């Protein structure tokens, strides 16, 4: 158990980007990145969670995995949205979270911003490239 350990991260705030490029159930990448995001939330860092290419399918609405016997983790992305809301509301906390979908990837798959289980910023690739270039750490899957 790690509850009683206090992590002193005061003064160290980096910009983390999590790049999701894989569809949710065919490989383990999506779930692994999601777990990394959830763990890193404890360290109060800046985070940009990005969905490009088939990664946009991770947050598609209406997933029901009962028939393929796998865990439907699309619901778990709600925690990311909650963390983002907390970060936005808490003025004492220097933490900025963004949830971004690349416009080109979304459109190539016939999807729109309403098709996702969380509220997202839709950015064209040129703008997303700028955000990516600003990061201190990029974790991709």
């Amino acid at each position: 158990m790690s509850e009683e350990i206090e992590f002193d991260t005061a003064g160290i705030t980096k910009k983390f980007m999590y790049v999701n490029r894989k569809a949710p159930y065919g490989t383990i990448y999506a779930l692994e990145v999601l777990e990394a995001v959830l763990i890193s939330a404890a360290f109060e860092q800046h985070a940009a969670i990005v969905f490009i290419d088939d990664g946009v399918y991770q947050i598609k609405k209406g997933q029901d995995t009962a028939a393929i016997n796998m865990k439907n983790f699309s619901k778990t992305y709600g925690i990311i949205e909650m963390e983002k809301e907390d970060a936005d509301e808490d003025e004492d906390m220097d933490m900025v979270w963004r949830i971004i979908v690349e416009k080109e990837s979304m459109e190539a798959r016939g999807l729109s911003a309403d098709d996702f289980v969380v509220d997202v910023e839709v950015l064209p690739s040129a703008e997303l490239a700028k955000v990516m270039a600003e990061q201190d750490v990029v974790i991709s899957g």
Partner: protein
Amino acid sequence: MAYEVGGKTFESDEEGYLVDLASWNEELAGLIAKDEEIDMTDEHWEVVNFLRDYYNEYQIAPAVRVLVKAIKKKFGAEKGSNKYLYELFPYGPAKQACKIAGLPKPTGCV
């Protein structure tokens, strides 16, 4: 391993976590709590029910940090602390409360 309640058998893993979380009921929770040497009070149930609701919504148990924050939001500042949760569940709120709630062992917990 298994629990027996009212003539029915509920399978658990070797650490006592329920295998089929849909089979959970309050009577069974009481039995698991007894094994954990916890006397269930309203305050215990608050946490256990919160964990079950959270799991239903997000398909994952919350990290302790998230649990503390959420309990604080829902039940007030005096309950939103590590200390309060450890008083209720001395061997760790994640570990014990999740077990009683019939949820899988939290993964983020080493």
